[in-house]
């Protein structure tokens, strides 16, 4: 697999989009921290930017990249190479490059301006979010052969996770306000990785006002440390399940 990974990595490095993405993230985070006089405020600005842009760029880039790798996959499949190795190499290559971009773009300013504990959690959340987006992209690629459709599915999923989800939860809460639905809402929050990331970081920052509805309830329910463990586990599941699912389908795909 290392041999395939080498060629995937070389190819992605040549791609200028990842470099542009790194620069964009760096610009956002440096300016957010230097514009705000207080680091906590800066951190929240960065958080909101990260939660919107990281999944969007990662999911789109990964989807397009996988479709463009079709020829590469076809070429390799006729040689003595395991199918699962090709898929894994693509996944690891994409994840690594996007995680590196995030670490350089957001990680450096975070470590300089924020306190280390918070910075590390935020780094972990952003890295997980990148990997999750790649996994979701792989899943939408394997479901349709049509590139435009695949990209469409990816964008819709992003839209749902980033914008619609919290709205839906809030709507449900108002509709069922007379009933004890806290537990149900905690359960619901597991259904969006972006919300989970927000909760994860805000649990650490302790600013309940910014948490959004699901976050507030999550905190109430789990408290801080258990909340961290639960949300990290859920996030791990969020990239494992879509990726393994896509891998299963890829093994049986006709090329």
């Amino acid at each position, binding site marked *: 697999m290392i*041999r395939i990974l080498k*060629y995937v990595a070389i*190819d992605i490095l040549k791609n200028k989009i990842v470099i542009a993405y790194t620069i964009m993230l760096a610009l956002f985070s440096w300016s957010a921290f230097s514009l705000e006089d207080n680091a906590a405020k800066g951190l929240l600005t960065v958080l909101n930017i990260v939660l919107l842009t990281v999944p969007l760029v990662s999911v789109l880039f990964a989807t397009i990249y996988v479709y463009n790798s079709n020829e590469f996959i076809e*070429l390799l499949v006729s040689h003595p190479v395991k199918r699962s190795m090709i898929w894994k190499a693509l996944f690891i290559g994409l994840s690594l490059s996007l995680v590196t971009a995030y670490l350089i773009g957001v990680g450096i300013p975070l470590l300089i301006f924020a306190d280390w504990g918070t910075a590390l959690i935020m780094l972990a959340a952003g890295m997980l979010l990148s990997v999750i987006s790649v996994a979701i992209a792989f899943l939408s690629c394997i479901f349709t052969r049509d590139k435009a459709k695949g990209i469409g599915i990816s964008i819709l999923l992003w839209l749902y996770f980033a914008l619609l989800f919290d709205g839906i939860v809030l709507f449900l809460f108002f509709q069922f306000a007379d009933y004890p639905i806290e537990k149900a809402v905690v359960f619901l929050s597991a259904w969006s990785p972006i919300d989970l990331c927000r909760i994860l970081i805000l649990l650490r920052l302790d600013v309940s006002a910014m948490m959004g509805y699901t976050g507030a309830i999550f905190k109430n329910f789990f408290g801080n440390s258990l909340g961290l463990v639960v949300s990290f586990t859920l996030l791990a599941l969020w990239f494992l399940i879509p990726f393994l699912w896509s891998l299963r389908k890829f093994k049986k795909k006709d*090329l």
Partner: protein
Amino acid sequence: MIEIKNVTKHFGKLRVLNNLSLQMMKGECIALIGPNGCGKTTLIKSILGMVLPENGAIIFDGYTIKNDNEYRKHIGYMPQIGRYPENMTIGQVIDMIKGIRHEHTALDLDLFEQFELSKMLDKKMRTLSGGTTQKVSATLAFLFKPKVLILDEPTAGLDPIASEVLKRKIIEARDRGCLILITSHLLSELEDIVSQVIFMQEGNVVLHKDVNDLKIATGQETIARSIVHLLKMETV
């Protein structure tokens, strides 16, 4: 060497391979012919593990190819339309395949030299003409001296000189004892190469015969005429 047992494949509702069985032995040079869409390419892709049939088994050298990939070491494949990563150069593609195969045996660089690929190593795959892409495919198929060669429309798009070079190379491989499977619509091109003919129609093998037997049975002089003769007899 390659045995295909009751293989069936559907694409959606369309039945592409219909309970197909075949046996191909070492040293044979087989022409796989049939009208467009009769399942030739699907059959080839099934042997390569690119298409996974629903039923039946494909046996390579005594072992089923299901869940195996090492057997592909012994196969050189030249696709009908070679699709390569667009941004890679010819040199990078060849290096990559060498790197992935990771074999230490001496490479067969005949075609590489005769097609003069060394002059174009820096050309990107996306800028190549169809014929040049075919030359790269052919070079890769022969590069590792495989025991089995699968050539899907090998001469389509090649200029007459290149096509002659490739034909000579195929004959040389046949004489070395390779199993060669060729699909082509230009039967006249295959005339002096092949020893067996497989004729497919709508996912079935209609005919699998030795070329000489076929010619004698039909009383014709060339493969093309024998096939046409047979088809006419069927329709009458």
